[in-house]
């Protein structure tokens, strides 16, 4: 460990060790490729799934180990800068890596059953692993160049994953829409980055921050660039007005993919947004580029649009898609409540948003995986079709009730504390209006979340549920684990929020 605790170093062994979670993910992706190319006709679903899970779990383990050991954190020599500062390993990066790998583990476990009959599951697992690798890179990117590259690296496998069911019109349509909006958004992001480069002459985040004070007449160019970079972040996090892909992509994609995108991919977008705006663009607040207000407006519109549009959906999956947009709005508060110079409150509110994304990673993934299970059973998609499922699958339905109430922010579950801390942080930072909108929309969200619980537990079955006999091991295990973690995050919220706030504080130090 001692090697890792030092500051800069150039040899590649050191770099690999510092980036070990990402490297492990990439290697696992390649191993899965390798297995498939050695036995192109063998459908080694179990072997592939186990290999993938081993990879994500070991990456998760390393990320947590580093977090606990203090690697890259102020207590142990500060952030580790690699590749001339293009990559930086610190608490924020490790924290988000833990989120991605947890979600990926759950999703892979679920996919084992979901793609049981698939012709070639190897491509699915490797796409998922490579996307996770790219997300891990997004979280440690310290240069706009690596940000763009890793973001694209995460997006491209995601498009393919959404359109993975090649013969399913919904999946293909979803993939198309996701891809087209993604292409436009990445072009906007690239253009924004080029404008920031034009104004400051650098792509490294700390250098940009240093240059912002002397942009002079080019502050307009910088401003447009920053708004466009914000657009790129908004695309990845599914925030208004770059959210249009999300409802369709989540609805049409295979449910495990929806789970992965709405939890991990969204968190990755926030990882980039938090680091870029906190590190590079904070000085821009002083020269008339008020991106805090920008994110404030986006947060309000996103919360309102996501939650309101979710309220009258007829299909559970699409409702969850919109609720996922609403949650992006909550997490945006972490960026919106940043004010120039107020390091302490900035760190608190951003840490709260990170903690919320952590909790959200489990409860939202679990909810989508429950839907994956329902899809596998062949039950319909609407609220009516879900009626009476609790009689057939009480444990899973109980877990789903936990996810719904936790997403709504009812006390008893992890989602309550994270939302509460987030809103409290916003109030303390002086942004009571963000907290107020968040509270009102949360109240509304209880309405549509409880519709699911009501259908599951209180209504009588409308359709024939005899098909539900089997309990797919992997899916069930993933749902139950997510449920248990969601419950445990209520008493165990302390360490999460402390880690998150320490990581955020290092960014503002």
């Amino acid at each position, binding site marked *: 460990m001692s090697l890792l605790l030092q500051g800069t170093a150039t040899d590649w062994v050191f770099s690999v060790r510092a980036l070990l979670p990402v490297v492990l993910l990439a290697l696992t992706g390649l191993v899965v490729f390798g297995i498939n190319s050695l036995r192109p006709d063998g459908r080694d679903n179990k072997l592939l799934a186990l290999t993938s899970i081993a990879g994500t779990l070991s990456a998760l383990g390393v990320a947590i180990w580093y977090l606990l050991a203090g690697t890259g954190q102020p207590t142990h020599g500060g952030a580790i800068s690699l590749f001339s500062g293009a990559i930086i390993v610190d608490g924020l990066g490790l924290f988000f890596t833990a989120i991605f790998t947890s979600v990926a583990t759950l999703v892979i476990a679920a996919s084992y059953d979901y793609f049981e009959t698939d012709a070639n599951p190897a491509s699915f697992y490797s796409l998922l692993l490579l996307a996770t690798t790219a997300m891990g890179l997004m979280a440690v990117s310290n240069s706009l160049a690596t940000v763009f590259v890793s973001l694209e690296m995460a997006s491209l496998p995601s498009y393919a994953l959404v359109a993975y069911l090649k013969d399913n*019109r919904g999946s293909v349509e979803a993939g198309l829409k996701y891809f087209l909006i993604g292409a436009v958004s990445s072009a906007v992001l*690239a253009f924004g980055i080029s404008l920031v480069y*034009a104004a400051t002459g650098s792509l490294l985040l700390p250098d940009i921050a240093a240059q912002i004070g002397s942009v002079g007449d080019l502050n307009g160019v910088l401003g447009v660039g920053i708004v466009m970079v914000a657009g790129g972040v908004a695309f990845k996090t599914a925030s208004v007005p770059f959210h249009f892909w999300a409802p369709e992509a989540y609805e049409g994609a295979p449910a495990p993919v929806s789970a992965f995108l709405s939890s991990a991919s969204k968190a990755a977008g926030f990882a980039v947004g938090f680091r870029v705006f906190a590190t590079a663009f904070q000085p821009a607040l002083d020269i008339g580029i008020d991106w805090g207000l920008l994110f404030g407006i986006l947060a309000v519109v996103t919360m309102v649009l996501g939650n309101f549009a979710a309220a009258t959906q007829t299909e559970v999956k699409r409702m969850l898609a919109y609720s996922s947009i609403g949650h992006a709005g909550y997490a945006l508060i972490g960026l919106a409540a940043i004010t120039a110079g107020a390091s302490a409150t900035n760190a608190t509110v951003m840490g709260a948003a990170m903690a919320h994304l952590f909790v959200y990673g489990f409860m939202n993934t679990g909810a989508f995986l429950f839907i994956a299970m329902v899809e596998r059973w062949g039950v319909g998609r609407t609220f009516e079709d879900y009626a009476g499922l609790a009689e057939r699958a009480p444990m899973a339905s109980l877990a789903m009730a936990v996810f719904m109430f936790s997403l709504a922010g009812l006390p008893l579950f992890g989602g309550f504390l994270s939302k509460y801390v987030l809103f409290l942080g916003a109030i303390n930072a002086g942004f009571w209006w963000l907290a107020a909108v968040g509270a009102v929309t949360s109240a509304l969200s209880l309405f549509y979340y409880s519709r699911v619980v009501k259908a599951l537990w209180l209504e009588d079955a409308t359709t024939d549920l005899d098909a539900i006999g089997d309990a797919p091991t992997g899916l069930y295990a993933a749902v139950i684990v997510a449920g248990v973690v969601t419950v445990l995050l209520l008493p165990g919220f302390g360490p999460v929020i402390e880690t998150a706030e320490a990581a955020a504080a290092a960014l503002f130090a």
Partner: protein
Amino acid sequence: MVPPEYYLVLSAAIFCIGLFGILTRRNALYFLMSAELMLNAAVINLVAFSFQWGNLTGQTFALFVIALAAAEVAVGIGIVLVLYRNFGEIDVLNADSMRW
């Protein structure tokens, strides 16, 4: 030497042409091309200001952008292919079964 503003105007113009294409074209391939055009607008900026600032960062990044654009097209073409297989055409407006 050409003043930097000119490059900005050029790249903005190309960006807008690409955007216009995206807003008006129904064929998925045109849609792809327009997106590429928008990326190239960014490339122009990067190269031009790399020269302006006297460092190679922009030029190097431009190469990355070009490579990623190619990768994006590869994935995009794949999606267009399955679109054709499922919908029988590549009109992006026809895939509208999911809405609201």
